[in-house]
């Protein structure tokens, strides 16, 4: 029997697992979390014993059905609390999958190795946050953090919150905050109304179903959001200030290239700020597997195949398009990975194509303005882990002998800290390119998750086939 390993149990991975099971494969589904769902369907802890979990979820019933089908299937092995720390490229076929099982950052995890017949990678994406003065103050969070804490733990990050950045995802974040009892002072979309409408309004009728779902808005919150929270476009937080924690933010009107318009600054008192400037796909496993990347995402064919033999990609790693598109991609990937006939899943492929169209429009409607570095000062931290400043980067890049990407990295330590450039990598690459440096891949992490020396030194259990 064909063995399909699916990495990531968010909307894409869960759909891939379901379709691969329906196509007759045996499936191993791997996720670092306790429960499936990913960031989109981030579930409450089982220990909360919540009676109405669906109140926090859009599309809970179909998710719940799919989840039960997959986890209860006799051909499915569900590996929760399991991280992929590396992929090992083999001479033929998909790479072997190197696992750490049974914990988070230690906890007596065990090492295991699986050799799949086909590998579906659906690791998803995380918020991208552009740096600005004060973004390293306590109380400044990614938009995703605010949502994960509210949906996954019932924690609110503050009482007076500004949500800022770009993209439709800011709205469900604001909705989650409102639902959990915060006051959302305003939501700021950095792109101007004309930029946003250029992306959306052309043939917008085709996109309505996608857009509606992508908003992920729990219905009760929409009304509150519309009535109580101003949504301002062409405006951004360009500075956070406070003594030891964020106390106020400075917002400014932006030109279409995101350069602030002088004289338009406003100061807004807050106790928390949530920012997100789009998403960064988690591509390290694809780099390790030798997959070709294109325009910052994994390149796939019409059946979600990557350029690496036996490796499929699904979800936000192929383009940011939200959960419905991710599910469609996962379904195609899982089905084909399991050996299913692509002709038998026309409907899923159509949905997937609509999702790709949506991703393109999303990108056009919510681009990152090229002038964002205008927000920076010389002492603004760019790499949070190593506290490399914008000035440090500028100094490194103006040396002709030191402008190579490795020289910049090793010379300034930007990207060398514990997050391994996940937060700053794309930003540093853009700053480097602007200052004449070499542009290099920012996703090369052969060690995809930290592994303790004791875990690494032990022999892995080789799973028998």
């Amino acid at each position: 029997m064909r063995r399909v390993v699916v990495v990531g149990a968010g909307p894409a991975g869960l759909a891939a697992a379901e379709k691969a099971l329906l196509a007759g494969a045996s499936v191993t589904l791997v996720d670092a979390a306790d429960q499936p769902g990913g960031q989109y369907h981030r579930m409450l802890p089982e220990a909360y014993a919540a009676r109405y979990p669906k109140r926090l979820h859009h599309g809970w019933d179909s998710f719940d059905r799919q989840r039960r089908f997959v986890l209860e299937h006799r051909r499915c092995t569900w590996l929760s609390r399991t991280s992929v720390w590396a992929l090992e490229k083999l001479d033929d076929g998909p790479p072997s999958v190197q696992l750490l099982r049974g914990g988070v950052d230690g906890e007596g995890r065990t090492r295991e190795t699986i050799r799949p017949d086909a590998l579906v990678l659906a690791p998803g994406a995380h918020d991208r946050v552009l740096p600005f003065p004060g973004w390293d103050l306590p109380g400044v969070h990614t938009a995703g953090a605010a949502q994960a804490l509210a949906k996954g733990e019932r924690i609110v990050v503050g009482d007076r919150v500004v949500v800022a950045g770009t993209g439709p995802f800011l709205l469900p974040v604001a909705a989650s905050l409102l639902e959990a009892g915060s006051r959302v002072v305003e939501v700021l979309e950095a792109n101007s109304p004309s930029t946003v409408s250029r992306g959306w309004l052309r043939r917008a009728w085709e996109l309505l179903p996608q857009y509606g779902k992508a908003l992920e808005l729990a219905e009760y919150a929409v009304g509150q959001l519309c009535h109580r929270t101003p949504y301002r476009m062409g405006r951004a937080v360009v500075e956070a200030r406070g003594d030891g924690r964020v106390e106020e933010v400075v917002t400014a009107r932006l030109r279409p290239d995101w350069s602030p318009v002088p004289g338009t600054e406003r100061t807004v008192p807050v106790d928390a700020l949530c920012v997100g400037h789009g998403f960064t796909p988690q591509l390290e496993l694809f780099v390790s597997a030798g997959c070709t990347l294109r325009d910052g995402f994994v390149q796939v064919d019409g059946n979600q195949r990557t350029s690496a033999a036996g490796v499929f990609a699904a979800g936000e790693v192929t383009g940011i398009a939200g959960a419905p598109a991710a599910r469609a991609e996962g379904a195609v990937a899982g089905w084909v990975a399991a050996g299913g006939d692509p002709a038998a899943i026309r409907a899923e492929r159509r949905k997937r194509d609509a999702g790709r169209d949506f991703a393109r429009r999303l990108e056009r409607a919510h681009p990152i303005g090229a002038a964002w570095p205008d927000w920076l000062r010389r002492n603004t931290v760019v790499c949070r882990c190593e506290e490399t400043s914008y000035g440090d980067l500028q100094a490194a890049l103006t040396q002709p002998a030191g402008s190579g990407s490795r020289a910049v990295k090793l010379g300034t330590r930007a990207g060398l800290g514990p997050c391994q450039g996940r937060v700053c990598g794309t930003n540093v690459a853009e700053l480097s390119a602007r200052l004449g440096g070499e542009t290099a891949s920012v996703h090369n992490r052969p060690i995809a998750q930290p592994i303790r020396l004791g875990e690494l030194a032990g022999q892995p259990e080789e799973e028998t086939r």
Partner: protein
Amino acid sequence: MSPRLVPGRDDRVGRNDVPVRISFDGDPVEGIDGQTIAGVLLGSGRQTWRTGVSGGARGVFCGIGVCFDCLVTVNEERDVRACRRRARDGDDVRTQSRAEDAR
């Protein structure tokens, strides 16, 4: 104001809270079972617990295990992401930094 937990009696999801108790730098801190360590600390009104390279206070930034800003030492194990590790009764959680005195 500080970060806080949505009070159980008001919560629309209908929780049934079971207390969990950890120690944070020697002080007892109470949370509810199922929370991450970050959740327990935030729920107790603490916003930061790590010291950055140049002394700045750090806590949760990304909330999903990507930024490594929230690292703590748990039961003498360094570099545990507080936003991902579930709190267990009796966990000994300590702040950490790269400086010598933190060891």
